[in-house]
């Protein structure tokens, strides 16, 4: 999970769960601390999943903040970069009209700095964009949402438009969706939801072969079913 925590929350916010070579789990927190040696069993994974889902729910509530940050950084990036480009153009024009090394250098240094600032701001905007994308995924996966997604995946044509590679990744990730949240792509979840909507809208019956070839339905973290 991406880091959505404020400075105060960082020490309690889990960002990653790693399965070590010795078969134990390591929990990585937003402040960078790693807590090792947790058992890798169903109880532990269920507990961590529950904790991460709780984190996810609180993040979903703060979605507006990240959307705003994304828009703000994007706008600032555009403005600063444009100002930088204009400044460099002004420098070039100054050099052509009446060469004044001091002025030209001033324009160019300001322009370069502004473009650099724009690039940094663009970076922040992209980071927030990816966070917003993940929040949208979490919105769909909280509560009964994950079972709804699993049900769609189990219906014929539920995974249409998803490549076989991404399909496998999603199927594996849906066992513990919040632990595997980083591997779930927003576009894939959106596609599955659209397929579910299309199936619901059509309400048609499928042939036996179509029904049997659909992936198994995963219900409520039942590992045996996967």
């Amino acid at each position, binding site marked *: 999970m991406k880091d959505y925590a404020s400075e105060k929350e960082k020490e309690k916010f889990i960002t990653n769960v790693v399965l070590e070579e010795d078969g134990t789990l390591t929990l990585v927190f937003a402040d960078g601390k790693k807590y090792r040696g947790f058992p890798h069993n169903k109880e532990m994974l269920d507990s961590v999943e529950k904790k991460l889902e709780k984190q996810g729910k609180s993040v979903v509530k703060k979605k507006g903040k990240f959307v705003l940050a994304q828009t703000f950084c994007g706008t600032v990036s555009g403005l600063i970069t444009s100002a930088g480009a204009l400044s460099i153009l002004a420098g070039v024009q100054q050099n052509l009209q009446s060469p004044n090394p001091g002025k030209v250098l001033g324009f160019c240094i300001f322009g370069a700095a502004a473009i650099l600032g724009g690039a940094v701001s663009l970076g922040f905007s992209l980071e927030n964009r990816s966070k917003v994308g993940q929040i949208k995924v979490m919105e769909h996966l909280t509560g009964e949402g994950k079972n709804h997604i699993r049900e769609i995946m189990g219906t014929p044509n539920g995974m249409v*438009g998803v490549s076989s590679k991404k399909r496998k990744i999603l199927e594996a990730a849906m066992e513990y969706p919040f632990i595997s949240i980083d591997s779930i792509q927003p576009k894939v979840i959106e596609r599955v939801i659209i397929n579910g909507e299309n199936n619901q809208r*059509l309400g*048609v019956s499928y042939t036996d072969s179509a029904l049997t070839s659909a992936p198994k339905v995963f219900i409520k973290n039942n590992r045996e079913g996967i």
Partner: protein
Amino acid sequence: MKDLTLKKSERPRFIKKVEVKGGTYVLTYADGNKFTGIEYNDENKKKIESVLKKQAELGIISRRSFKLRKTLCGVVSGFSAAMMIGGATFAEGLSRISTLDTTSCVIAGGSLIFFGSVSLFISQQKRTKNKEKLEQIDTLCFLQDPQTRTDILETASLPNGLTGVSSQGKKLFDKADPFGLIDVDSMHKEDYQTILGNQRVLTGLAGEGIKPTQYIKK
């Protein structure tokens, strides 16, 4: 059915084609994805038809937007053609009045001609697509009136009722539901207008006592 969506985001939800393959229905959505394995039976046909009907209604509502798009494409085509002609004139004129060498003038004029022709090609393609969509919407609008449908069906069942109708259009009347939207791509307003024209001619002839030897329904 033509892609009657206005937004790209609507395309994954819009059924563009319905085919029968291997005893099942295959639905192709406007974004290219296919729904397969749907049982071929009357119940499913009705359900698919009802979804297509809703899509057609949305298309009819969007008619003005498609008309505007078509007009805009026409305007862009006009500008593009003007850019091409302007490019040729500009190159010729520039070489006379400026001190630039001929190669530079040819490059400047050639660039205008190139961008003009690319723009003309793209805008014409888009215009044709929008024109086709508008034609389909017109056909759908035309068939909305129940009386028109009744008249068409009655005339189509008479001898000579389908005279002048395209072979694609004639095939529709061999089906149980000639107005089924599954075959919407075979439906053309001109064919229906021809049938209604035949109705007027046949009624006029019958009024004058001129009837085929077997004036019975097919």
